[in-house]
């Protein structure tokens, strides 16, 4: 039976396996329609809350940002929806597979990298609807208007990809813990809370001083968001800022990526050796 599965796997390539995982995850998530719709609704509530807060007219010029507060916060919140998903997806999905007893079967057909990319793509695809709906609502009702050129779109895509990957590798690192101990560490929600507060999503990081500044500089989203604000909100793109922040993100992805692959392979070997792949 195992050889049958293995021979069928040989007929497929990595891309089709990633696609299979992503498609399965999307179908599964959409079968929980109420949960998905509630997430969309809550994201809209968050945007609306900050829209009304922006009516207090916070002055962004003093932080060197030539945009309104709502334009500033919208970019951060839109990214927050995606980052939350990419941060939680790999680790959370593996935890659910272990509980459901399907993790051993997945390991037989897919390798860890394919699984991580597939689940993150599915999560991002679903979360992106929140952004488009929020964007539509903001254009229609909140007087939000933002125009971007071709070069800005290319830079946004590049930064978006780097931000996505940097949070995916963090989730992979926590997945190593989950696979090894077969329980959730509970650190991911804490990390998400830290990211939400100290990466400059709802206020400029120029407000921070002392230890919070150091903390914010350890969070990859800080660099991604700084570059994105520069691309979208600045009249003249500061290439050196974008270049520097992209390099930081690439370095982060490489270092954490290597670490996570190392720890995950150790964890998988350990669970196979002790015959508790999906034991819970």
């Amino acid at each position, binding site marked *: 039976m195992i050889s049958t599965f293995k021979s069928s796997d040989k007929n497929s390539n990595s891309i089709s396996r990633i696609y299979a995982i992503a498609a399965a995850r999307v179908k599964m998530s959409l079968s929980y329609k109420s949960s998905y719709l509630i997430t969309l609704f809550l994201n809209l509530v968050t945007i609306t809350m900050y829209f009304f807060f922006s009516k207090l007219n916070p002055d962004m010029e003093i932080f060197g940002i030539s945009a309104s507060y709502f334009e500033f916060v919208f970019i951060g919140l839109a990214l927050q929806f995606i980052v939350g998903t990419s941060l939680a997806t790999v680790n959370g999905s593996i935890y659910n597979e272990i509980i459901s007893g399907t993790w051993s079967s997945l390991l037989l057909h897919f390798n860890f990298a394919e699984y991580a990319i597939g689940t993150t793509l599915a999560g991002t695809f679903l979360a992106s609807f929140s952004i488009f709906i929020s964007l539509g609502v903001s254009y229609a009702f909140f007087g939000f208007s933002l125009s971007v050129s071709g070069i800005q779109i290319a830079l946004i895509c590049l930064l978006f990809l780097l931000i996505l990957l940097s949070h995916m590798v963090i989730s992979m690192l926590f997945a190593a813990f989950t696979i090894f101990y077969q329980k959730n560490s509970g650190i991911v929600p804490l990390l998400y809370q830290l990211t939400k507060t100290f990466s400059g999503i709802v*206020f400029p990081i120029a407000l921070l001083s002392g230890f919070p500044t150091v903390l914010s500089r350890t969070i990859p989203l800080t660099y991604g968001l700084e570059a994105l604000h520069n691309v979208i909100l600045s009249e003249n793109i500061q290439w050196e800022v974008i270049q520097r922040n992209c390099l930081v993100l690439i370095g982060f992805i490489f270092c954490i990526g290597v670490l996570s692959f190392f720890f995950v392979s150790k964890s998988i070997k350990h669970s196979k050796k002790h015959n508790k792949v999906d034991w819970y």
Partner: protein
Amino acid sequence: MNFPQTPSNVTQQFANENDSVSFYSGLKAVFIRNFKILWQYKLTIIVGFINTLIAASLFYYIALLVPQNTIEQDGYIVSSISFIFAGAMLVDISTKILMKSMNSFTSEMRQGTFETLSCLPFGLKRYFLSEITFEVIYGLLISIVKYIPVFLIFPLFIGFNISWSSLLTILLLLICVLIFFFSLSLLAANFTILVKRGREISMVVVGLIHLLSGSLFPLDLFPEWLRVIAYFSPMTIAVRACRLCLFGNGAITSAIVWIAIIALLVSSALIIVLFNFTYKKIYNRIREKGTVHEF
């Protein structure tokens, strides 16, 4: 003990809570069991402290964005930090009670222990009352403890004086808020066992309460139609009344305060009536359909 002969006899026996321990003993058992469970998750309590501190930091830095760092409402001008913290803390503490209650029922259903609890002679209704009483008391105490480091770190209420009458009025308001969330949790528990979506129900309610109560901004910023809708939530006027007592020397005689107290008590009473009205129907329905712990 008389053993029931038909399914309706079984339902009747459980509904009448025959052969059950007293409510006090059951309540004590629920408290002891929940404390033992909580003790197993010590790390979660520590993480909760850090999470509260991080969330407080978020509110603090947002407050610094407000021009001149002051906000005006109901005739008083106050620091934006104090204004935002007063609203956000009240909403945060009270909504956590609802979230905790719903999460506990959802966990029981997910783990398959809900069926046993609902079929005990103690009775599902008394179990709801015991569980929610625990969550209200525990939620309140743990929130107060978790906010102590926040008070020590951030300059939240520096340089403001409060009279004894305002302080006593705030305590009265807090009791009314707790009664309101107790009754809301009871009603939400009813719908949780019917639709099996406790977490989702509480998330929607909490999201709307956060938006409509104006925890981050004065309600004058809402358009007229939204302000009318906002006042349908008793928490909106409760937050406004609490702020008035804290910053504007409001007391029980202030119109906003007594309207808030009446709104909270009347809505609590209505919710309890609705809970009683729907409880038996929902209980019978889930037993007849055999969906007690379906998730």
